[in-house]
């Protein structure tokens, strides 16, 4: 299992459009991806649930990636988070 910690930089938080692109990217991997904020967690491949987390600028989230392609998935995810959020 891989784990990523990430603090959201984007003043808009996790907005619909970049979140949608992120979800699309994640769906190309077989690994399970779960995002944690405080005591809440959701499947990160689900756009509406991810948006429902209400993640704002300055929030720190933890993401767990588990599966056969977890290395590649984590690398891609990290890149995408840095670029878009």
């Amino acid at each position, binding site marked *: 299992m891989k784990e990523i910690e990430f603090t959201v*930089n984007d*003043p*808009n*938080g996790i*907005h*619909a*459009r970049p979140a*949608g692109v992120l*979800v*699309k990217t994640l769906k190309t991997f077989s690994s399970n991806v779960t995002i944690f904020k405080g005591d809440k967690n959701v499947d990160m*491949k*689900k*756009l*509406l*649930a991810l*948006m*429902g987390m*209400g993640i*704002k600028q*300055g929030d720190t989230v933890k993401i767990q990636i588990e599966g056969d392609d977890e290395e590649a998935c984590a690398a891609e995810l990290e890149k995408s988070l840095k*670029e878009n959020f």
Partner: protein
Amino acid sequence: MQVATGKSVLNGIAIGKIKVYTPPKVVISEKLIDDVEAELARFDEAREKAIDQQNALYEKAVIDAGEDSAEVFSVHAMMLEDDDLIDATKAIIQTQKHNAEYAVKVAFNNQARVFAEMDDPYMKERSADIYDIEQAVLNVLFGIDPESMQGTEPAILVANDLTPSETVRLDKSLLLGIITREGSLNSHTAILARSMGIPALVQCGDVASKWDGKTAILDGYNACAYIEPTEDLMTSLRNKRDADLKQKALLQELKGQSNTTIDGKTIKVYANIGGPSDIGLVQKNDAGGVGLFRSEFVYLNSKDYPSEEEQFNAYRLAVESLAPKQVIIRTCDIGADKQVDYMNLTKEENPAMGCRAIRLCLTRRDFFKTQLKALLRASAYGNLGIMFPMIISTRELHECKELLQECTEELQKRDISVGNYSIGVMIETPAAVMIADELAEECDFLSIGTNDLTQYTLAIDRQNAALDPFLNTHHPAVLREIKMTIEAGHRHGAWVGICGELGSDLTLTETFLRYGVDELSVNPVSILPLRKVIRGIDLRKEPEMK
């Protein structure tokens, strides 16, 4: 004549017959179904068709309203692929044996409610997106053709409310204006109308179905609509509309043209912007580059010191998306009237003459170096200019350049490459004007900040209205300083621009051209009007005495 009021989305006038749109009434049956599989298939089919429609709307909106406004539809398409939403709908069909229409309504409404109850205002508004895609799926299920809301003649469309999908579907050639009872100035519908250049009135409580077929004027300037207007009003507003359209067409014609006078002198017309969100405006108004990118937004929008990474991302976005156009970023101009809590600046008796801009940066060097490194990193992605504000001595400029060198070396140690960039100085004080020759010797360009230069030359606080009788914004002292700076710059190998408010003062454009100015940097909306004036100037003619 009836006068109806609302909120205006766009300064513009529409004149024509009203078409009142009433959405078709649909009744969702609560009768239970027998064939679950068939009903699931109906839902899937409708959902996929709705996705295709949203993708098609995206393509249409990109052309009609631009990429930013169009994004809402690609989000809709993605939302329609959401597993939770699909599962919730299917569960209602499977377990409760309801038909697809009923299941869609219940499941989508639940999701809309989740968003509506969130604290974040942005997320709250996403409930409108869910209702929009719900309508899209239901329309397919009911076989309703959403294209049929307009009549066959050009008209002002009146409706209770319009979803973004409905707005983009409208045939622009038949759409003169929009009036809705609901909606807000920031709704997607308003944004779309604005970027399509359609006059629109929202929150117009007077909307009535009896308006259908009547002649009306939508006056966006005054946020009202006249139903069955008087002849006089009709004539005067028709003239205004025609003048508007002429102006618009003219400006459109100027896009892609050069800023060249009749006798063949070309100058640069750049844009002043306040953050990466203005990049679209730079492109839309056909600016040659950015002459003043105020970097304060990175400090003012932040609760703590913005990191190098954060700043780099913002600068890179601007530089990269506008490349190969030049983007001139002014380093931190905090202090005086721009205060930031976390910086704990000392309260000063006279902040305009205090520790602001470059003085603050050279006092807090680590803070300054964070910005310089972010800028240097961004220089690898396009055509960057770095401009220092409030310089009054060559020593300050030397120190800035030394810090740039120091930062470059530190970045190289981190294996980060630095691109080419040019260096400029803002001329904002009489002191800088006097030594413009020496400054020009040490940098690539000078940019005259006329707001501060006027204030410091005339010793008049521009915010103090009591001094208005004493303030002459065309004061000969300021104009001579501009002339001196341009000449000094040219003698010593630097190009010279103007980025203050005087740059967009069209009554001075010819004067500045005669002085030999190389660049004028103005608000994005002033670019095309300025281009128009430049193209009408002939420098061979004797200047008119003013």
